[in-house]
């Protein structure tokens, strides 16, 4: 549905997006992840025909964004960052204006506006002035606007930025409910969000795609993907020695917390050795008050992927 090949965008010599290629299949929800200034917004603006690319080829819904800009725009629902809206208009009035602008005609305007207000939970706010709505509601108006002409592709730039946790949850549920009906590309730097919503993640850094996979696989890519933390009452050195003998444990570090001993065992890829660690603890008769598995999350992957360049 979206095909990007060797996309490059330069702003006065500096490449904001540098030779980026990726694909999004029909019905997929893909997260576009990267630190600020990585080139997320630029890429999305090119996909939505707001900016031209300096090089490369971008096809959305089977059409080239540069050559068939109008066609592409008809098939794309784009929600820019910070959701710019005409603040002096009322919600229903604004959505009707946008629907007509995007080519919805006659009686359909009313039907579509009604539908998207229902989907986005805006029915009670239909007659309110947009400028007086809370940020969360404005975000919903932006999403309703992106949906109003029944596009095939949704491009959402930071859909949950600046919202409080409840509003984030709402918007997240909303986006999830759109899955499979639309092809969605959303950008975010909130990792948790991408992890929860998206089937696939593209990590972009300094204008280049550094990783592209499902959140689980990306996490799996990381070395030592399981860490077990435990607190026992024992001699630190002895405990360390015994735990190192457990098959699969690669490293043990620890320190005293009061009279307790806090240890962290790093395990090899794919091995879950919690039961064996527990057995070792019981065999030695150490009092135990905590044993937790700390799985690495997307945040660790993100940090690892996006700071590699800095270290070089």
């Amino acid at each position, binding site marked *: 549905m979206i095909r990007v090949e060797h996309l490059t965008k330069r702003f006065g010599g500096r490449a904001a997006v540098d030779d980026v290629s990726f694909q999004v299949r029909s019905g997929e929800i893909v997260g576009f992840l990267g630190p600020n200034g990585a080139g997320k917004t630029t890429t999305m*603006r090119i996909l*939505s*025909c*707001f*900016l*031209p*690319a*300096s090089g490369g080829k971008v096809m959305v819904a089977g059409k080239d964004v540069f050559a068939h*800009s*109008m066609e592409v*725009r*008809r098939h*794309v629902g*784009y929600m*820019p960052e*910070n959701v*710019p*809206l*005409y*603040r*002096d*208009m009322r919600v229903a009035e604004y959505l009707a*204006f*946008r629907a*007509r*602008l*995007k*080519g919805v005609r006659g009686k359909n305007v009313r039907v579509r506006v009604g539908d998207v207000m229902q989907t986005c939970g805006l029915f009670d706010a239909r007659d309110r002035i947009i400028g007086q709505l809370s940020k969360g509601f404005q975000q919903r108006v932006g999403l309703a*606007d992106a949906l109003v002409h029944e596009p095939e592709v949704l491009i959402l730039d930071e859909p949950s930025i600046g919202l409080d946790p409840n509003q984030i949850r709402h918007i997240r549920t909303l986006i999830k409910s759109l899955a499979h009906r639309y092809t969605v590309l959303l950008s975010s730097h909130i990792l948790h969000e991408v992890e929860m919503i998206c089937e696939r993640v593209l990590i972009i850094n300094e204008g280049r795609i550094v990783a592209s996979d499902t959140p689980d696989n990306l996490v799996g890519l990381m070395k030592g993907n399981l860490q077990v933390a435990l607190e026992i009452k024992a001699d630190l050195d002895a405990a360390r020695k015994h735990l190192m003998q457990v098959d699969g444990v690669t490293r043990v570090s620890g320190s005293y917390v009061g009279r307790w001993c806090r240890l962290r065992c790093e395990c090899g890829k794919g091995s879950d050795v919690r039961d064996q660690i527990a057995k070792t603890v019981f065999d030695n008769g150490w009092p135990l008050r905590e044993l937790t598995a700390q799985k690495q999350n997307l945040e660790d992957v993100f940090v690892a992927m996006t700071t590699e360049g800095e270290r070089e």
Partner: protein
Amino acid sequence: MRKTLIIWQRELSSSFLSPIAYVVIAVFLVVAGWTFLEAAESNAGSQESLEVLLFVSIFFWMPFFVTAITMRLFTEEKRSGTLETLMTAPVSDLAVVMGKFLGAFSFLFVVVAPAVGVIYILAAFSPGVEGVDSGNILGGSVILVVISSLCISIGLFVSLLTRNQIVAAICCFTAICFPFLIRTAVSNLPVGSDQMLEYLSAETHIVDFARGSIDTRPLVMYVSGTVFMLFAAVKALEARRWR
């Protein structure tokens, strides 16, 4: 065409949603009316017709008025980011520019028409006056329409070049003042011929038209100027998409 009308409709309705519109209307009607009154009093007994005085008083405030209308046209969209939503909808650049132009023009029409209509009320309540010379009013209205179109298209173009309203206002005001002041400014300098200045001066055209003599040359000049400025505006909007 359909998209132009949709944008025109929004522009016009949003003009009347903001309090600025009502302030501008009130101020314009008061100052233009006051200027007309002053002009009529100081020209008492002279040959100049009231129609000419009326149109000259309206035109006197035109640069301020047009600047107030046009400075926000695109600057506001750029500043708030709505240009991005507008330009990612399936609308052509021409439709956007024409919609905005027609919106501003209609707003100006709504405000200026009552100022012209004042003369009929005045005539109805003045026992000594036989009536209004509708030829003069027609001539004045025609030149009013073409000159204000040009001024609006200039303002529209300028508002596309910056995202700062103050910068837009200053540039727009200067550009619009140019045809009004050119004769006064240049007539004392030993450059150009008087006849050329005569052709360019809005002041001369206004007086001629308001006396009922409709000349096609200035009409062609203002209309082609408007078309050119709108063309430039479309190109300025398009420039964003140049590789």
